[in-house]
């Protein structure tokens, strides 16, 4: 099948990138002209199936290296790792859009960002050091390590995005409530941002507790960092002294408490931090010639909740014609309230997902309900199987590509005829 765009037809291309997101939206602005928007381009290190290069090449071919807008929904590896400066600096890029939480001129954003980055580093070092020590670790550790990996080593991509890829792209930051009534270079496109919010209670949730101590490897020796000694030395007492017999713990118990409370709680912190970053997702609503496309990034409940209760949210949800399913179809990324308000049979959906590194993603009951709500007009990226990526985790095979969708070498397309 020739890979060409059809006149008067919106095409949304979801790439099979592994565990990550990469969507190319092509909008027909005249009979034979198209403008292209790229929403995210990244893959998680632990869910990489090695298709990134082909994907970026395909983006270059389809767009003739011209992108009207590049959107980085949030600063997670699985959404931005593909924004390599050497590749994208060869593109002509109109604008780069990011959430307000990335804005270097917003003091709140800067402070929060600094904290998030420091915390992610600390957690990464701590997990590495504990692994080295061969300590018993909790069941949640593997998942926590993967969550933290998603937060670090994003600097190159972020720098490139902030620099407008060195091609004079106009870098802009948005928050929930903002809108762009007329997007430069894309006649007919108007955009509203539904998230991320900026209110105090949201911010409080974004602010992870700092001040814990953590372990770090230094030339193969484990050091305790950030450690606070709460009392003067004179108060410390040798537990082996006879008068301590009744006020000390057995060694097994000491060890248990050490792993249980002083160290495993950091797993929880890793998930909370991950959640916080997901919730900074730019939630973008495109309106183009009567069609409404919703790209919520990885927004989780907190982000959705901020605008779901506002007037008019029900109308927006009822009107959408396309939904990019948030956060790879995870459990709390598509609130029931929101999904139930979408008009049954009136919209199609795409889920970029795979069940590695996290087996609980995507959430099956959610997938089932989406099938019902879209009347089967939904595809999962991991249904795509190909000799190009033989070792990629396989999702449920599609017996029949649903109406309006098409299959390609590295992608699924969804077409909306205008």
């Amino acid at each position, binding site marked *: 099948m020739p890979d060409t765009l059809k006149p008067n037809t919106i095409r949304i291309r979801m790439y099979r990138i592994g565990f990550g997101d990469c969507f190319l939206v092509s909008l027909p602005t005249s009979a034979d002209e198209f403008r292209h928007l790229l929403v995210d381009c990244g893959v998680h290190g632990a869910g990489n199936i090695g298709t990134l290069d082909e994907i970026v090449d395909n983006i270059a071919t389809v767009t003739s290296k011209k992108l009207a807008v590049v959107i980085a929904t949030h600063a997670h590896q699985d959404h931005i790792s593909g924004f390599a400066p050497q590749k994208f600096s060869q593109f002509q890029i109109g604008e780069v859009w990011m959430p307000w939480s990335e804005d270097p001129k917003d003091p709140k954003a800067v402070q929060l960002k600094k904290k998030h980055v420091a915390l992610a580093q600390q957690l990464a070092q701590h997990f590495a050091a504990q692994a080295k020590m061969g300590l018993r670790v909790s*069941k949640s550790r593997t*998942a926590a390590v993967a969550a933290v990996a998603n937060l670090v080593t994003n600097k190159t991509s972020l720098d490139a995005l902030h620099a407008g890829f060195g091609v004079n792209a106009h870098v802009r930051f948005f928050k929930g409530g903002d809108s762009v009534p007329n997007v430069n270079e894309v006649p007919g496109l108007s955009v509203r941002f539904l998230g991320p919010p900026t209110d105090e209670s949201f911010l409080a949730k974004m602010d992870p507790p700092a001040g814990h101590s953590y372990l770090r490897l230094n030339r193969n020796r484990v050091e305790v960092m950030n450690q606070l000694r709460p009392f003067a030395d004179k108060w410390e007492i040798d537990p082996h002294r006879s008068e301590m017999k009744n006020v000390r713990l057995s060694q097994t118990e000491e060890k248990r408490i050490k792993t249980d409370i002083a160290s495993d*709680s950091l797993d929880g912190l890793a998930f909370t931090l991950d959640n916080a970053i997901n919730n900074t997702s730019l939630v973008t609503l495109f309106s183009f010639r009567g069609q409404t496309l919703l790209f919520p990034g990885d927004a989780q409940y907190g982000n959705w909740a901020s605008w779901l209760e506002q007037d008019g949210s029900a109308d927006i949800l009822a009107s959408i014609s396309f939904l990019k399913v948030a956060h790879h179809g995870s459990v709390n990324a598509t609130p029931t309230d929101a999904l139930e308000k979408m008009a049954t049979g009136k919209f199609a959906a795409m889920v970029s997902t795979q069940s590695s590194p996290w087996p609980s993603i995507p959430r099956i009951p959610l997938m089932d309900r989406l099938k019902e709500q879209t009347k089967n007009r939904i595809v999962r990226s991991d249904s795509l199987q190909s000799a190009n990526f033989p070792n990629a985790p396989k999702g449920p095979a599609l017996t029949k590509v649903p109406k309006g969708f098409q299959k390609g070498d590295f992608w699924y397309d969804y077409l909306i005829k205008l």
Partner: protein
Amino acid sequence: MTKSQRYDKPFERPLKAYAFDPSQGRNLGNYMTVSIRHEPLSPGPIGRYLAVIDYDASNDSYYEPVDLNDPSVLVRGGLEPSESDPRFHQQMVYAVASETIRRFEFALGRRTKWGFRGGAKDDPHRSRLRIFPHAMQEANAYYSRDLRALVFGYFPASETDAGASLAGQTVFTCLSHDIVVHETTHALIDGQRRFFMEPTGPDTPAFHEAFADIVALFQHFSYKEALIEMIQKTGGLIYRLNVAPDIAPGEEGPLISSELATSNPLVQLARQFGEAMGARRALRQALGTRPNSKDLQKLFEPHERGAILVAAIFDAFFSAYVRKTRDLMRIARATGAQVSPDNLHPDLANRLAGEAAKIAGQFSNICIRALDYCPPIDILFGDFLRALITADYDLVPNDVYDYRAGFIEAFRLRGIRPENVVSYSEESLRWCPPEEMKNVEPPVCKGLKFDVFSLPTQTEQRENAILLSRFGRNNARALGLRPNVPVQAHSFHPLHRVGPDGRLHVEIVAELMQQAELKLDPKNRKSPNFTFRGGTTVLLDREGKVRYAIQKNLGADNQENERLTRQRRFYVEMDAASGLTTYLGSSRIDSRPMNFNLIHRGY
């Protein structure tokens, strides 16, 4: 004659503590003395219920234990408040936790039992709740059934915005009176109600948090000095969050500290903790938002949702306070004097403080007592209202001061509607005895072993449990249990209390539990399992006759079982919010108790 026999044993042991937390300095009677029940103590302190063990897992070290029997400590009435001496910290957690236990015992009319079992045979603290005042370097504190402990962390205050604390100074959660009461309450509820920690709906975790906050907040009104000062500053309106400055500032704005407006610590919880985290305010407040019926539909985070219940209780409390002190205010005004913040007569302030303290004590007791009238699992805020009304009615049949009317109004304003109730009238809110509900003769459970003066022995407990289980099976229909499903009896509590009319009430509370292993999604064979519980709290009179059977029916696994449908829905939707399940998934859903560790991180 030995020395010790020449003197009567003291009843009480005075110990010093912060009324709020170190950030309040010496203001507002912050240095207070708690008089706790005297008991033999060894260094730690280690007593009958509690063992304070100062092991710091983050530093892998022990701090010197306090010996509260040392004469130099005794003559001082306990060590002076100090942030730098760990022995004071140990004294304070012990004192505050003991005081909280005493409140519960007083209200419930029985001795405390903890909710955990076990511990190694050679563990000298097997049956005690362990307290680790400096367990870890983390801005967190929680109760852990697994560790049989209250775990308190310490952490450096925010470098940029630490409120009344110094930037970066060490903040100890065990020095916050509120946090200690809150965590102790979690442990105490767990001892009363084993299954309350299972999150079966949005109300269950929220209830646990709210109840702990309620107990902590009511405790504030027993600090006489702080109370009198706040009554002076607010002109008697102690529920106001903000307090006018001592002197109104001039046009150029406040110049000295007396011209700065402050906030009212009586209605705030854990101020230092909240501020040190950079939030610029206390962790939580007694009266959060304006009463409205929408919050209940949109707040699901346990603390936020719990705040609705806290506000309802404190609305009732403050309304009762206003009603009961109106006469005093009128008398004061009759003399022509103004009743306003800057000129409240000290006698009036004293009388108001007395009233506020008395009413707070009564409300706190009503709330704690209501625990016995709660269903054994899956508590809803509406159930708690019914429990409050019934419990109070049982002890004080005529509601002279309109306390119950106040509760009903406050709950109604916040949209908390009990299920299966026709109206908000007191009669329909009271749990009804079995004969009214099912039109059957109330069953009688004969042969239970208990007496007024001692706790049942282990053998007696076992026999009682067998007796009660059989009783439940044989009277399944009358008690709202499912026939032909095994019944387990839990937490048999004899209780004794004296009503205001001087009568001694002897009653027995027990939980009869049933359970079924079900699929989360009944249509999907691969879906994870969970334990669905049903059960009935039975209140028996001293002859063993059922007075109330407060039920959450097990029911059948079908569409008509509303409670089951609701619980399934909750697991699917809300469990997700923890962040953990996003990545871990789970093969089994419930049975793991609520993880207070994560909840308390404040997200």
